[in-house]
């Protein structure tokens, strides 16, 4: 938690829990609405956090989302334990997905998750260790006019 952090909260996510999937991003959105942020910013955060949350549910065993609000930005750090990503460059390609057939049948795995998150973010940092897990850190600025 940085010095100028106004608000911080950590949420946990369970892999393959499709029933609860999306709840974290709903809660984050509620906080941002209450904080009176611009609706365009809220929508960008909501959509990025939803995609990130879904990635954990679809691919990982478990994970957490750390949400931090500063006077200028929203920082989301998504940390998961799971298979990790073998080829980061490939993972960022639109349409590329390693989701299983089962997942695809449920309508996931369009290969747009990470590219969409990147589009919504001002800063995007992805790190992964195969067999261990993935860490994604994104920043969305909210103080621009």
């Amino acid at each position, binding site marked *: 938690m940085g010095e100028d952090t*106004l608000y911080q909260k950590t949420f946990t996510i369970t892999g393959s829990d499709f029933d609860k999937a*999306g709840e974290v991003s709903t809660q984050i*959105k509620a906080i941002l609405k209450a904080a009176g942020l611009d*609706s365009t910013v809220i929508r960008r955060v*909501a*959509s990025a956090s*939803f995609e990130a949350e879904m990635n954990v549910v679809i691919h990982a065993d478990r994970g957490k989302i750390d949400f931090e609000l500063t*006077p200028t930005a929203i920082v989301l750090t998504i940390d998961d334990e799971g298979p990790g990503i073998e080829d980061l460059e490939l993972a960022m390609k639109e349409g590329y997905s390693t989701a299983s057939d089962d997942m695809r049948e449920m309508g996931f795995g369009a290969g747009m998750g990470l590219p*969409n998150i990147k589009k919504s973010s001002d800063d995007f940092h992805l790190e992964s260790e195969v067999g261990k897990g993935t860490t994604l850190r994104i920043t969305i600025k909210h103080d621009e006019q």
Partner: protein
Amino acid sequence: MIHELHSIRIIEDRCKGRLACMRVCPTDAIRVRGGRVSIKPPLCIDCGNCIVACPEGAIVAITDPWEEMTRYKFKVAILSPVLFGQFPRSITPCDIYEGLLSMGFDAVHDLSLESELYFRAIQDYLEDYDGPLPLISSMCPVVVRLVQVAYPDMVGQVTPIQPPREIAGRETKKKYSKEQGISEDEIGAIYISPCPAKIASIKAPAEKVKSNLDMALGIRDIYNPLLAAITKNKKARDEDGAILPRTDIYSQLYISLPITGGLSKALQQKRYISVAQLPNITQVFEDIEKGKIRSIEFLECFSCTGGCTGGSLTVDDRFVARSKLQKVSELIGEALNGDEDKFIDQHYTKGEYYLYQTLEPRPVERNRLSIIEQIERVKIREEYQGKLPGIDCGLCGSPTCAIFANDVANGDSDPSDCMLLSPARVDELRIMYKIDDKTEDDQPTA
């Protein structure tokens, strides 16, 4: 301010603070303070749920008084099709037309043409549109206001097409001013409405321009005199054998547009969903905002169960009314001769039916607080949310514990308004609700 005009009014001395309205308000706009109800105008979307819920009849719709009509030289009744489902099955649309004319209207106008024009305009708009999906239908004014108030980022997804009633306001004025040789101002376009929301949308349109309609009367308000007129006419006809005037309704779409699924079914080649009731609509809007719903192209939403037949200014049971409308639609279908499409083609001009101005978000409160102050409030709210029992009893005067926590954080409520945080509140409530201490033993014996 124009956008804070509403069509709902509280009759204060009828209110007994029974909380029913507060519990059904979809935007949590209602509070009960000191045993009396109040509505927060910026949050109210005129859905009318509170009108139906109040056991005392203390919340009413503001409709225009009948006498207002005398202002106009030529009075045209513009009919929501919901009206046709409100009478016993033996009363036909023709009877209803005749009844309205006897009541003092100079002409009765259905929305056959306008419904078809609206539908074509929507089809064309969908065809050319390449913005974010799904597009949201603009038929239900409650939904439009909900988007403006709570989902400001989605206003661009509301189809900017005038609903049939508004197109009709413009068309009738043109038509009758020509036919009668009088100015458009002398013609009163009077909408017969199934709900207070459409009345509000006429008094204060969502896009902040003037409505094409001049007045609105609730179906409920004209029901008794209309039924009396119809009955009288029927009797007279039995005696003198006069012929009933015919209606010129030729559009099945006119009948089905205000019913859930009506518009979507007509847009069959599109991927659509049809959603009714605000909690469901809110759920779908949340999912759209998150990006969970992506494959849907068109979203048809109605605030009321089943569509406008569930409006709070209707009379008959909403499910029965729907079944009766289906029958009317079948009858219209039987009478079609195949020339209707040509007629509609002649009247349709692409691009003629857009809203006069783009829809703008309607922010609930202009925020003068800094983000730091706001976040302080969020923290106070979370602190109280942790303390409160979450049983949502409502006796603090806020609809839920979560909203009470929010009200406390905003300084609108005091923590001592919760009887579990502050036992003294119970005594206050006992006085407010006139509970006395007499037990059965104290009752005088007969």
